[in-house]
Structure formats: structure tokens, C-alpha cells
């Protein structure tokens, strides 16, 4: 469906040069942080086979209802393809097919995902994500969270981190006798604020010696909350213990690093593929990223069972929140190079001058655009004086381009 005014497909956006500068600034800050942490950049295809996302434990049917799937030239086989609705699953596929040598892979990406949203909302989202695949234990989770916080701080934001553990809800709902499918549905109802699900679970757990609302209605502020939950519920739901232990390790480490994570029983929606720590990142009161541990995912997409975790930062809100970026840097001296006449010799002189000045690392534009905003103007002729420089210091004339370059450097 076309937006008739812009001739764009519904849910798709154009980015103008200024917006694109901000996008690149976000991506640049992210890449700088990732490289400092030792991550290497990858890119996965926009089109993937649909079945990569349909296995139980990958994307939920509700998410799959909103993907762009279609039959391509090879669709006679009956297999559909899909515009990448998620980047973690392709990264897991890439690892299982190309990198799985038992070594720890530290990968980052800057790419888009496609999902149908409500009417008018964006259907193409750009994400900056990092995946840590291999047996790293709690250290890996802490390292990823530290990376996300550093990347956000590199964007001049003050991030907050919210943590959960998929095992908490899974332990409680499992103890209540729910199947994995019922757990996924109940989890979504919890996130939707449907309190009836808490009553339903409590009615199935007569052995509880503390109210479940302690878990679902109180947002904790650190390790102390985890110990409160442990004392109240671990006796009646023993399966909570490993999840609380893992969460406590990460929270205490982050607290020792000076971070103040908040703790929640239920967090990100992608419940099914998360198996451990789940994380969300906020800045200026907006959600700007999420991730978690997904130890079963690499196996689900055809690899070995390899522990893994990752996160993605959302470019759209970051572009809005990031203060005026200083990247890409704007040259202090911006030179417009023009020919003194339409004569071929003068035009050639201007082009040659621009090339020589650029090789001297001077920003020189031989065609002036709407955004050029030149600080200086160099008029080039075939005859002496060959160069006339107009700038804040007035008018100067030269016969040698080296002298022009020196004058500009001096300015």
C-alpha cells in the first residue's frame, strides 16, 4: 500500500541527510564501543528462510503473524522466505553454519529488521546489536551489559539497566503445571498487566508461603530484593533457586561496578528464546534496547548446544535522544572551488585545484550543494593570477596551488 503523498510503502521511512548523520553517529558510537570490547562486525542477509524463525523456541506465532514472508523464485518448493524480522536468530544461524568451532564468537551488527506494526508505525527498524556466543557464564552477561552501557554513554546518554531472568517466571508457571505454550501465553498476559494470571497461578500453587505479588508487583532495586524473593518463594518453588543465583551474581557484580540495576520478574516479550538473564536498557525514560541469554537458540537453528547471549539497541529512539552529534566531523575550512569562466581550461583548472587540495586534506567542493556552507571560495582561471581566494581574511591571489593550501591551513 502506498502513501499517496510520498509514494512510499506504508510503514517505511526516508532519512534526510541530517537524520542520516544522526543515525551514523549512533552507529559509530556503538561500533567504537564494540571494537574496544573486542567484537567484530558481521552482516546477515535481509532475506532468510522462514523456517529459521518458526521452530518452537524461536519466534512466537504472534510475532510470526507480523513478518513479511513471501514466495521467491524458488518458492515452487513450497518453502517461504522472510524479510529478517530479528537479527539474533540469523546471527545464531551464521555462528552454527560458519563459525562454530567451539570458540567464543564476539559479533556485532548494525542492520534493519522488518515487522508489521500498528497502522502508521514504522515497519522497518534499525538496530545495533551484539552477540556473545560460547561458554562465558555470568561473566559474559556482565560484559555485555557493560558494553551496552558504555555504548549508550558514548552517545552522551545516561542509561539505566533493568534485569530479569527467564527462569523466574518459567519456574513459577512450571510449578503451577503450565505447559511451555501456556507459559508463553501467561507471560504475555503478565506483561499486558493482566493480574488475573497471578490469581490463576496462585490458585494452582497452594503450597506458596508468600504472595506471588511480591514477585510480580514489586520492582526490585538490587541484590537485596533478590534475597527477599529467595526467602519468600524459593522454599515452595525450588526451581527458582538457580535463576535467582544467576541473577544475583550479575546484579551484585554490576553493583560492585557502580551500576544500579532494577529487577523485574517479567521483562522482554521474546520469552521463548530467552533462557537466562534478560536485560532492558532505558535512557531519558524511553526503552532503547533489550536482550538476554538464549542458550538453546544455536541448537534450534541447526548448530550444537552453545550458550549465548546478546542485546540490541534501537536506533530510532537513540537518534532522537542523542544530543547534537559531533560525528561525522564537519571540516572547519570548507572551500568552494569555482571556475572563473565557462571556458574548458578554467573548468579543468578548478577540478584540478580541488583534487590537489583534497590530497592536502582540505575539504574542497567543486560543485556547491545546498549544505556546503563554504567558509572560503577559490576562483580558478587558466591565466595568472590563477587562484583568487575569498574568505574571512579578505581576498588573496596566488599562482601556485601549494600556496593556496598553505594559506588555508594558516587560516
Amino acid at each position, binding site marked *: 500500500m502506498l502513501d499517496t503523498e510520498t509514494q512510499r510503502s506504508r510503514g517505511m521511512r526516508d532519512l534526510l541527510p541530517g537524520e542520516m548523520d544522526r543515525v551514523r553517529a549512533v552507529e559509530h558510537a556503538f561500533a567504537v564501543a564494540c571494537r574496544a570490547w573486542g567484537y567484530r562486525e558481521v552482516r546477515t542477509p535481509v532475506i532468510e528462510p522462514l523456517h529459521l524463525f*518458526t521452530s518452537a523456541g524461536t519466534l512466537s506465532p504472534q510475532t*510470526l503473524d507480523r513478518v513479511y514472508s513471501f*514466495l521467491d*523464485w524458488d518458492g*515452487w*518448493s*513450497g518453502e*517461504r522466505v522472510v524479510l529478517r524480522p530479528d537479527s539474533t536468530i540469523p546471527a545464531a544461524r551464521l555462528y552454527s553454519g560458519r563459525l562454530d568451532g567451539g570458540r567464543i564468537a564476539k559479533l556485532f551488527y548494525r542492520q534493519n529488521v522488518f515487522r*508489521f506494526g500498528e497502522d502508521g508505525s514504522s515497519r522497518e527498524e534499525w538496530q545495533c546489536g551484539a552477540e556473545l556466543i560460547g561458554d562465558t557464564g555470568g561473566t559474559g552477561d556482565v560484559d555485555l551489559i557493560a558494553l551496552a552501557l558504555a555504548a549508550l554513554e558514548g552517545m552522551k546518554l545516561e542509561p539505566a539497566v533493568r534485569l530479569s531472568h527467564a527462569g523466574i517466571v518459567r519456574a513459577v508457571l512450571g510449578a503451577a503445571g503450565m505447559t511451555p505454550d501456556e507459559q508463553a501465553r501467561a507471560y504475555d498476559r503478565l506483561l499486558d498487566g493482566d493480574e488475573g494470571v497471578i490469581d490463576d497461578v496462585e490458585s494452582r500453587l497452594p503450597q506458596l508461603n508468600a504472595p506471588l505479588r511480591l514477585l510480580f508487583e514489586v520492582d526490585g532495586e538490587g541484590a537485596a530484593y533478590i534475597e527477599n524473593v529467595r526467602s519468600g518463594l524459593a522454599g515452595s518453588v525450588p526451581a527458582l533457586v538457580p535463576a535467582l543465583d544467576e541473577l544475583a551474581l550479575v546484579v551484585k557484580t554490576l553493583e560492585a561496578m557502580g551500576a544500579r540495576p532494577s529487577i523485574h520478574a517479567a521483562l522482554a516479550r521474546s520469552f521463548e528464546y530467552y533462557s537466562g538473564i534478560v536485560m532492558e536498557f532505558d535512557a531519558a525514560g524511553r526503552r532503547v534496547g533489550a536482550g538476554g541469554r538464549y542458550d538453546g537458540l544455536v541448537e534450534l537453528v541447526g548448530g550444537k548446544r552453545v550458550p549465548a547471549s546478546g542485546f540490541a539497541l534501537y536506533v530510532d529512539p537513540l537518534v532522537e535522544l542523542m544530543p547534537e552529534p559531533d560525528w561525522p566531523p564537519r571540516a572547519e575550512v570548507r572551500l568552494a572551488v569555482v571556475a572563473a569562466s565557462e571556458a574548458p581550461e578554467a573548468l579543468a583548472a578548478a577540478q584540478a585545484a580541488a583534487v590537489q587540495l583534497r590530497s592536502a586534506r582540505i575539504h574542497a567542493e567543486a560543485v556547491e550543494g545546498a549544505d556546503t556552507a563554504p567558509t572560503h571560495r577559490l576562483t580558478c582561471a587558466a591565466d595568472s593570477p590563477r587562484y583568487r581566494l575569498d574568505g574571512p581574511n579578505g581576498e588573496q591571489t596566488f599562482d601556485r596551488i601549494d600556496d593556496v593550501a598553505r594559506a588555508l591551513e594558516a587560516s
Partner: protein
Amino acid sequence: VIRVALPTGDLRRDTAALLDAAGLPIPDYAGGSRALRFPMLDGGATARVFREKDIPVQVALGNYDVGVCGLTWVEELTQRFPNHDVVRLCDLGYGSHGLWLAAAGDEAQASVRVVSEYPNIAETLARRLRLSRYRVFPVWGAAEAYPPEDADLVLISAQDAAGVEAHGLRPVARVFPGSAWLIANRRSMAAKDLSALLGPLLAHGRMPSRAPSVTPPDALTLRMAGEPPPRERLRLALPDGHAQSHTVAALQAAGVRVYGYEEGTVVRRPQIDVDGVEVKVVRPQDMPQHVAIGHFDLAITGRDWLFDHLVQFPSSPVLEVVDLGRSRYGLAAIVKDVPANTVAGAVEWWRSRSPAPIRVASEYPNIADHFARERQLGHYSVIPIAGASEGFVPEDAEILIEGIDTGSSVRANKLTVLDRFYESTNCVIANRRRPEGALGARLDAVVERLRSGAATPAAVQGG
């Protein structure tokens, strides 16, 4: 003028009775007239007859304000396009049937094969059932004929479980309760006075508390089948419907007898008098895909359907191996009341009148899309249709891509053929990957016999 889309086919009699009871009688519609348009409400409304499947699409597009059709077709549209503009108004209380998920056995291939006339609902079910790998094969009909050799599951319409069992299938679950519904276009409901029509019709409908939704079974218990043994029998697909008489003639000319495939009979698995060959009768439209994936070694279909398949899937391994020379007709771009005699001239005329997309209606949606690209129509939309095609232009589409033979129907409907761009005859198709060994030799022998009976000397040897 209120525009109403009414069904032909199974729902026609009950819909005519409803209109009668509501004080909106259309005697010619009730009497089975072949006309496609009927005046209503003393000229305040006009009714157009469609195949049931086309009605939700036409109402969603806004070509019609109100429609009557089976809710299953509305749901089929909804599963693919949840934001469409169809509002479900009320259950009309007739045409009751269900959509049933059914299997022949309790085994499935690792990539579960689902065959259905309702591919979008089938996709939804596959996702809801968390099938880790599946393939949905849309078919024009005869879905029940596919299991067990050519499908693990089918999604078919049936009155009840006994109706499913009558096809030799095991009902797994009824996943959607269908019946005739009154539907309307959302924008028409919002801004156009439809009360003269809706008032009487709603008074005769049943308002359910909630429109039904697709409900998958709780679980699907299918064992994963092992690798099937190599086939020893050659599999030949023969067409039903209009193409059957031409195929019977081609087989007779080749000296091949197929018992149970006489003109006017539909037996899905007739017997052929060629050793080592088994036959299945399905829709000719669906054959190329099933030859491509290896369900059939050979099929007799129309070259038009092969063309439609190949423009959608250019990498398909299907090719024509014999031109049987019968069932000859052309595919053409047809218009009505357009002052132009070329496609380019017509496009220029439409563009001068409206910036809206040029609507190309066809039973061959992939060929229509191909045609629109080839003829550089610019901003266009393809409207897939199931039949009653001659009534589409100019009201419901600018161009109709349609098969024509003598042109008598074109003349009778005062239509204009702008461009006859493709010639079709019936043909034998096969997979580019010829089977090896005895099966390959058997295929060659059958092809040779069919070639010997071809109606023209222009039999084509595939590469």
C-alpha cells in the same frame, strides 16, 4: 448507488431467498439468470454476481459497499491482510460448513506438507501449531485428493467430520466454523448511507456475540516419516474440469485408456492401462508446482498454467515436453469502453483521467503481473479473481487478462481485445530432472505415446 456483491454457486439459492424475505427481491438472480448485474432498490442499488471467493476482495477494495459470502473466505483474506477494510456485520444463518484440518495417516515428512484452497489460514495454523518446518501448497481445488502421497495434512471445507471421512481422511480438528455472512466495506460503512439495504438484511441476520476465529487443535500428533523408498511407479496427473474432455481426446489419440476418466466423471485415482503408471486427477492450475517438487513425474495441463507458474517461479525445474495441440486459446488483455486500440494508448487515456493504480484483474495473477511489468503500466494493482470474469471491466478493473478462443464471448459482452499476447494449448509437462533407471525409461515411453497422439505435428521435445 449502493453496490452489492452477491455470490453465485452454493450460496446463491439461500441468498436469493434472504433477499426475497427482506423485501429486496431480485427475480433474475433467484432464477439463475446468466446476467452478472441486477438493479435493486429502484435503481438505488446495483447487485453484481461474483464467485464467492472474490467477494471479500471486492468489498475490501471498495469496489462494492456490501457483500454476502462465506465467512471462511473473509477469514482467508484476513489471515494474509489483517488491516483490510472488510467489516463483518452478521451471520446470515445459512451455508453452514466448517474448515477441517485432516490427515490421511499419522505420519508426516520432516517438512510437513499442507495442501489447501485456504493457504493463508493454513499458514496461520502451521505457525500456531509450532510446526518447525512446513510447506503450504495452495490449490485451486481437489485438496482432498492429495494425501497421503502428496500431502501430510489438508485444510478442507466440510459439513462435519463425516464429510471429511467420506474422502478417506482422518479429521484432526474443525478449525473454523463457516457460514454465509453479510460484510461491508469499512469506509462505506463510515461515510455512505447504506441503511436502505442494511436495515432489511440485518433484520434477517443473526448477531453472534463474537465473530469466530481460527482455532488450531491443541496438539498435532504426527510421527516423522522416514525417507520414502524410491518410487517404482510413474506418477501421471490428469486434469479435471474444462480441460478433461481435451485430455480424454489426447489420451484416446495416443491409444491410452484411463478407466474412470471418461468425460463427465471425476474419479481422483482412475486406472490406466499402462503398466507401472498410476494416475491422479487434480486441477490443471495446480500441476506445475507438484511436478516441480516431484509429486508427479508427468502431468497434462494447459500451457497457460505452466506460463503462470514459470513467471512466478523462474527457477522452477518444470518444462513442457509435448504440445498436445488441443484446448487451443489465447491469453489477451481485454478492456471495455476505452477509446484506444493499443495497451499504451489505453494507459495514456487512463492516466489522463485518474492517478489511481490501473487495476488488472485475472484468474492468472502471475501472468497479469508479468504483463503489467512487460507493458510498463506503471502504478498498477493485480486483482486475482476466481471466475465470472467477463463482468469485471470496466467497473471493477481497467484490464482483464483472460483466455479467449473464438472471441464470441468477447463480442457478446461488447469487450475489446487490445493485445492477444500468448497462445495456449494443452501439453505434457515434466521435471527437468528426469528420473533415472527404469522409471526414466517408463517416462520416456509414456511421453512418446502421448506425442504420437498429439493433435498437431508441432510436438515439442523438452531439453
